[in-house]
């Protein structure tokens, strides 16, 4: 158990609960023919979440933090892959599915483990072009295929 994370998330969920409760008050409660409007359910959820997150915060004061082994997380690798995934999403409609997928896969393969460039290129190419061909040509789906110049 990670006390720091639990405290942080306890506060975060508390805030979410409070915001939810306040925001639900803005929902109009008129719904004709019914005495229960669209407001009741979110309002109730907000209250329950507030109660639960207070309970969670209270719990973090009770247990002792277990000796957690220092893990070495591979932030660099993760950030490169995550960043290129964000760019992949951003460019997908702009430069088309095949090119963006190919580039993403190539970067991600090489980030996971350097080397074997030829294999990486082949796998990335077969995947991106194969999926596009199968989906758009054979199944008639629509994907932004190639960059429009």
């Amino acid at each position, binding site marked *: 158990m990670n006390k720091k*994370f639990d405290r942080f998330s306890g506060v975060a969920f508390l805030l979410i609960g409070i915001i939810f409760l306040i925001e639900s008050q803005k929902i109009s409660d008129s719904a004709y023919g019914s005495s229960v409007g669209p407001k009741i359910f979110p309002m109730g959820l907000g209250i329950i*979440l507030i109660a639960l997150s207070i309970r969670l915060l209270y719990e973090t004061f009770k247990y002792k933090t277990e000796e957690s082994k220092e893990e070495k*997380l591979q932030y660099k690798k993760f950030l490169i892959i995550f960043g290129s995934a964000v760019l992949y999403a951003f460019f997908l409609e702009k430069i088309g599915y095949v090119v963006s997928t190919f580039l993403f896969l190539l970067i991600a393969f090489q980030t996971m483990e350097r080397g074997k460039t030829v294999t990486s290129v082949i796998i990335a190419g077969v*995947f991106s072009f194969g999926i596009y061909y199968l989906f758009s040509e054979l199944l008639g789906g629509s994907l932004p295929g190639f960059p429009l110049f």
Partner: protein
Amino acid sequence: MDTLQFLADGFGVAFQWHNILFAFVGVVIGTAVGVLPGIGPMSGVALLIPVTATITSGMPTGAAAASSIILLAGVYYGAMYGGSTTSILLNTPGESSSVVTTLDGYQMARQGRAGAALAISAIGSFCAGIVSLIGLVLLAEPLSNVAIKFGPAEYFSLMLLGLAAVSGLAGKSMTKALIMTVFGLMLGTIGIDAVSGIARFTYDQPILFSGLEFLTIAVGLFALGEVFKTILERDEESGAIAKIHRILPTKQDMKDSAVPIARGSLLGFFIGVLPGAGATLASFFSYMTEKKFSKNPDSFGKGNIAGVAGPESANNAASGGAMIPLLTLGIPGSGTTAILMGALIMYNIQPGPLLFDEHPEVAWGLIASMFIGNLMLLVLNMPLVRLFAKIIQTPKKYLIPIIVAISFFGVYAVQYTTFDLYLLLGCGVLGYLLSKNDYPVAPLVLALVLGPMIENNMRRALTISNGDFSIFVTKPLSLVFIIAAVAWLLVPLLLKLRGRKVIINEEG
């Protein structure tokens, strides 16, 4: 006789050539998902929803739903078969319900009996699959006939029971599980309210009007969450894979495992029917039972074949049993069944008592295809087990980025918005952080699926009673469900207070 007629019609659906193909693809992918460490049945099914949705896009709704659910359910029970392979050969469970199998399975492999262990687990899984299907056939009609008499109040309470059951047993802290449940329900309220047509929490963003897409959230939380975990925490490369010498078990092996298979199948089935108690619990209970009934309990953990046969049968029977509340009541009892339910809802098909009347081709087609699928799995897992064992060696280097690309493709092909891709990535990070810190994500997904239904039933019930909340406790059946829900949450707490160790279910 009606049931037999329906079953025959179901086989008619299941034997259509494309559905046979779908079942086959499902069980093959399912086995692979089970074998690959890191991808569990939940993320496997979630990843394939968009793929099946696009493949079936040209078919009429009913047939498309039947075909998709045949494939997705195939992945689900296929993963239960495949999970044992890595447990036995590598001492690493492919999915959480195969944890127990490592105890005796790996020991058997070290003694050179890997083939026998794999064969027995395939045979046990097959028997269990058939047992749970017979149970499904027998119970489906009567249960849905009872459920059809439910009013909104009963439904509301029943769904609360479903949520309570999954939250009460999931993860290490019930507070966290409940927070996840409530958070999931909250996410479900985003969008235009179905009853009044009023937009809630949308802040005039058109993209939010239809609500957050279940599929994006499920794929993000499960599949990408796992992917990010693998990238960040480099798993130790496991040791050598045990060699498989002969595949067929000896006569003595068969004799030793016949009774455990029978016991495991029945036990697993009944545990599976209970909401919240999933396959992991079933296999664990079965192991304890076998140890208790055994003449020499000391041999367990040293390669006793009963310790493989019982639990492997139990976890398969449980996954069959879990289909019962899903199909007849519309209440998924686990994370994976919640995802299956979400898939059906995507096709505008509401699981529940009316399913058997309105869409018999989906319900019975699925049941019949499970007979066929189990048979395929037996064939696949006996002679081809060596081939599947090779999948373990797939380099993560290629696997991980391809999973990201598949989830991108799937989400985009269904939603056509880049907003969902960003949401997907966000959910991936959230999924990793949450499950790393023991916040179970399965209740969140379950709540997201059930949320709108819970709210609608609540409001319908309250409209009938003119806003009087006592309607939920004055209706006898509804009261029973509420008491059961409260008990489900309180009993483990009380047991804990009295110093008893409570078994927790770490699977979704």
